[in-house]
C-alpha cells in the first residue's frame, strides 16, 4: 500500500511538471496585455521613454525577458521554495492574496457539499428502489435539469426572484451597506445572508450529478446476486435496501466524495464571479482577465494539484473501503 501511494505520488509530480509546462508555455505565448497596458500608460506620460523602452524594462522587471524554457525552470525553482511571485493585479504576493480569499471559497464549498450529500444521496436511493415509477421519473428529470441548468441563467433567475422582486437578498457582494456598523455577530450573519444565493446556486447545479451517480450505483447493487439471495432468504425489503444494498452503494459514494474533497478548495469560478463574492474563484477570474501571469499560473497549478490529489484520494479510498479490491 505504502509503495503504491509513493509510486502514485511520484507519478503525480511528473504529471504536474508537464501540466505546468504546458500551462506556462501557453500563458507565455499569449500577448502579455497587462505589461503592454502599463508600458503604454507610462509612455503616455510627458517626457517619458518610448513604448518599446518601457516594454523592455518592464519585461525584465517581470522576468519575461528570458526564453520560455529558462523562465519555466526558474518558475519551478521558485515554486519549490514556495515563492509564487507577486500578483500584478493585486500588487501583493500571490500567496497572500490566496490566503485572503481561499477560506471563503472553502466555506462555500463545504456548505454546498454538505447539502449536496444530504439531498442527493437519499433521492438517488429512493429513485433506484422505485425504478420506473413516477417518483423515479420525476427525480431523474429534476436531476438532469439540474445538470443542464446553465449556472449564469439560474443565478440570474434567482436574482430576479429573490433580489429584485422579493428584495430578500442583495444582488452582489459579500457584505451589506452597513457592515461596518454591525457587531461581530451581526457581521457574521450579514456574510451568511449574502452567501445564501450563491450556495443555493451551487447546490442546485451540483445535486444532479451526485443523484444520478447514486442511482446508477444503487441499481447496479440491487441487480447483483447477493441482493437476490437476501430477498430469497425472505428478508424484508427495508432490510434488503438499507442493510445490504445501501452499504454496498456506499463504496463508490465514499470514493467519489472523498475524491472531490480537494475540490472544496478550488472555488466556484463562475458562481463567485456572478455574485461578486471575493473568493479564490472571483479573485482568479479578475487576475486572468487582467493578464496577471503569476496569479494565473498559481491558480492553474493549484487546480491541477487538487485534481491529482482528488484522483489519488479516490483510488486509495476505493482500495480501503472495498475489501474486495486489492492493489497489486
Amino acid at each position, binding site marked *: 500500500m505504502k509503495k503504491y501511494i509513493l509510486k502514485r505520488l511520484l507519478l503525480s509530480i511528473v504529471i504536474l511538471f508537464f501540466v505546468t509546462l504546458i500551462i506556462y508555455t501557453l500563458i507565455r505565448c499569449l500577448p502579455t496585455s497587462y505589461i503592454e497596458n502599463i508600458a503604454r500608460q507610462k509612455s503616455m506620460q510627458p517626457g517619458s521613454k518610448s513604448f518599446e523602452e518601457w516594454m523592455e524594462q518592464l519585461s525584465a522587471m517581470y522576468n519575461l525577458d528570458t526564453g520560455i524554457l529558462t523562465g519555466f525552470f526558474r518558475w519551478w525553482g521558485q515554486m519549490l521554495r514556495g515563492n509564487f511571485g507577486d500578483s500584478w493585479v493585486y500588487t501583493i504576493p500571490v500567496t497572500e492574496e490566496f490566503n485572503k480569499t481561499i477560506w471563503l471559497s472553502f466555506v462555500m464549498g463545504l456548505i454546498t457539499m454538505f447539502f449536496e450529500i444530504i439531498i442527493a444521496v437519499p433521492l438517488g436511493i429512493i429513485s433506484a428502489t422505485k425504478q420506473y415509477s413516477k417518483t423515479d421519473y420525476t427525480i431523474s428529470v429534476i436531476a438532469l435539469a439540474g445538470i443542464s441548468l446553465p449556472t449564469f441563467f439560474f443565478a440570474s433567475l434567482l436574482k430576479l426572484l429573490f433580489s429584485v422582486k422579493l428584495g430578500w437578498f442583495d444582488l452582489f457582494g459579500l457584505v451589506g451597506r452597513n457592515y461596518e456598523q454591525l457587531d461581530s455577530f451581526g457581521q457574521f450573519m450579514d456574510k451568511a445572508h449574502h452567501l445564501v444565493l450563491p450556495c443555493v446556486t451551487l447546490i442546485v447545479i451540483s445535486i444532479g450529478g451526485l443523484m444520478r451517480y447514486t442511482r446508477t450505483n444503487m441499481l447496479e447493487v440491487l441487480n447483483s446476486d447477493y441482493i437476490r439471495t437476501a430477498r430469497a432468504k425472505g428478508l424484508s425489503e427495508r432490510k434488503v435496501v438499507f442493510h445490504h444494498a445501501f452499504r454496498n452503494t456506499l463504496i463508490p459514494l465514499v470514493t467519489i466524495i472523498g475524491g472531490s474533497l480537494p475540490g472544496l478548495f478550488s472555488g466556484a469560478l463562475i458562481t463567485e464571479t456572478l455574485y461578486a463574492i471575493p473568493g479564490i474563484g472571483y479573485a482568479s477570474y479578475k487576475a486572468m482577465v*487582467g493578464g496577471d501571469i503569476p496569479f494565473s499560473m498559481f491558480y492553474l497549478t493549484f487546480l491541477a494539484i487538487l485534481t491529482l490529489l482528488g484522483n489519488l484520494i479516490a483510488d486509495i479510498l476505493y482500495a480501503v473501503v472495498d475489501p474486495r479490491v486489492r492493489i497489486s
Partner: protein
Amino acid sequence: MSDEIRKDVQEAAETAEPAENKEPQYSLNDDRRVKVLSPGAMVAKRFFRNRIAMVGLVILIFMFAFSFIGGIISPYKQDQRFYRTDSLSKEYCSAIENKEFRYAQAPDQDFSSIIQAQMVLATQQGVTEFSFKGVDYVMEPVGDDFYIVKLANGTEIGLAFKNVFSESDPSFKADYEFLREALTADATGESSFTANGESYSLDENGIVMQGSREVGYISRYVVQPLMSDVFLTRDFKEQLLEALETGDNDFFFKDPDGVESEYKIEYNAASQKYTIKQSRESQVYDTYASPSKEHWLGTDRNGMDMLTRLMYGGRVSLIIGFIVEFIANFIGVIMGGISGYFGGWVDMLIMRIVDIFYCIPSTPILIILGAAMDAQMVDPTVRMVYLMLILGFLSWPGVARMIRGQILSLREQEFMVATEATGIKVSRRIFRHLVPNVIPLLIVSASMGIGGTIIMEATLSFLGLGVKFPFASWGNIINDVNNTFVLTNYWFIWIPAGVLLLGTVLAFNLVGDGLRDAFDPRMKR
C-alpha cells in the same frame, strides 16, 4: 442459431390459431416465421418506448427546426437593425410680447426719458397733449399704440411704439427715418414705403423687404433663436407671428430641407415669454422594444429582432456543440483505440498524456485565452473557429479514457480472438470490429457531451469571452442581463434564451440517457 430457430418454431406454434384445428406445421418458410428484430431495431424499439427520451427527442427536433429552418423563415436578418422614430422636443426659439412703449428719438431733438414718462401718463389719461416744464407736446396717433410725438410747433422729436422693428440682417441699421416710415406703413396697413430714398415692401405679417432682401420685421413680438446654430427664416417667422396673433398653440413648418416639424408654443406667465419648442421626428435604434406583432420577442440592445437572433444563436450553439464533440471524439477514439488495442508502452505513453490533459483546468484556460483574444481583437469569425478547436482539444482525454476501457474489455472477448485467428489486418481489426462495438457508448457520451459543450460555450459567451457580436449565441444574448436594469425590466431579453438553452441541454441529456438505457438492457430489472 439453432436456439433461435427452435424458439421461432415454438412461438409460431403458440400463435397458430386453434380454430383451424390442424397439426402445427413445422416449416421454416418465411411466412411462418415470427419476426426477430435485429439488435439495432431492438435498441430503437426500446428507445422509442422510453417516454422521457421521446420528450427529449421532440424538444431536440423542435430546437433544430427553430434554429435551422426558423432562420430561413424569419423575415429579418440576424444583424438587421430596426429603427423607431422618436420625437425629440427641444427649445427652438422664444418670443416676447412687447407691452411697453419703445421710443425712438429724432435726430438732434430731445426726447428724454422724463418726457417719455409724461407721454405714458398722457396715454393712460386718454389725452393726446401734455406739457412738461412749460413746453407743450402733441402726440399724433398714427395707429394702435403708435404715436409720433411733436412739439407744439410741429417739430418731430420722437416716436413711441409698441410694435417693434427687429433687424433680421445684422448689417442693416434702421435709422430714425426708416423706423418712422416703416412703422407708419405698418400702422396704416400699407404694403410699401420709402425711406432714405430706398423703397421697401412690407407684407401682412410685418416682414420688411428691400427688394428680395429681408431686412427685418415689425411685430408686437420679439423673436429670438434659443439655439446657437439656428437661423430663423422669414417663412418661419411669418408662420410663427401668424400663430402668435391668432393664439394657436402649435403649428407645422417645413424647413428649406423639406423636413416638416411640429412646433409647440408654450407661454410662461412668470417671465411673460413664449417658448417655441421644436419636436422633430428623429430615427433612433429601436432598442429594448417590448414584444409586439412585428417583433414577437421584442428587440435587443442593438435594435435587432430578438426572435431572429435566438434562431441564429441556436444555430451557432448547436453547430459549435456538434463540431466540438466531433473533434473531441475523433481524437479520443483514435488515441483511446490505439492505446487500448496495443497496450504495453504505447498504452502507458498515451494514458500519461491523457492524465496530463485531464489535469489542465479547462475553464480557466478558456477564460485566459478569451481575454487574450479580446486584447488582440481577433476577428469574430476566426475567434469562433479557435473556440471550437480549443474546446474540442480540451475534452478529448475523457473520451480516450472511456474508449480505452471499453476496448480493453472487448479485446479479451472471443470474437477478437477469432479475428486474430483468421488473420485480419490490424487496422481492420480495430476499425471494423472493435470500434463499431464502442459506438453505442460513444453515441451516449457524445449526446451528453454536446449538452456540456453548449453550456460551456454559453458560459464563455456570457462572460463576453466566447462568441462575439455580430454573431448571436444563446450565451451572449443572455449576457445583457449583466446590466441590472435589463435584469429587472426586460425579461424578454434574457429569459427566452435561457429557456432555450436549458431545453436544448436537457433534451440532449434526456436522449443520451434514453439511448444508454436502450443500448444497455441489463439496467432493466
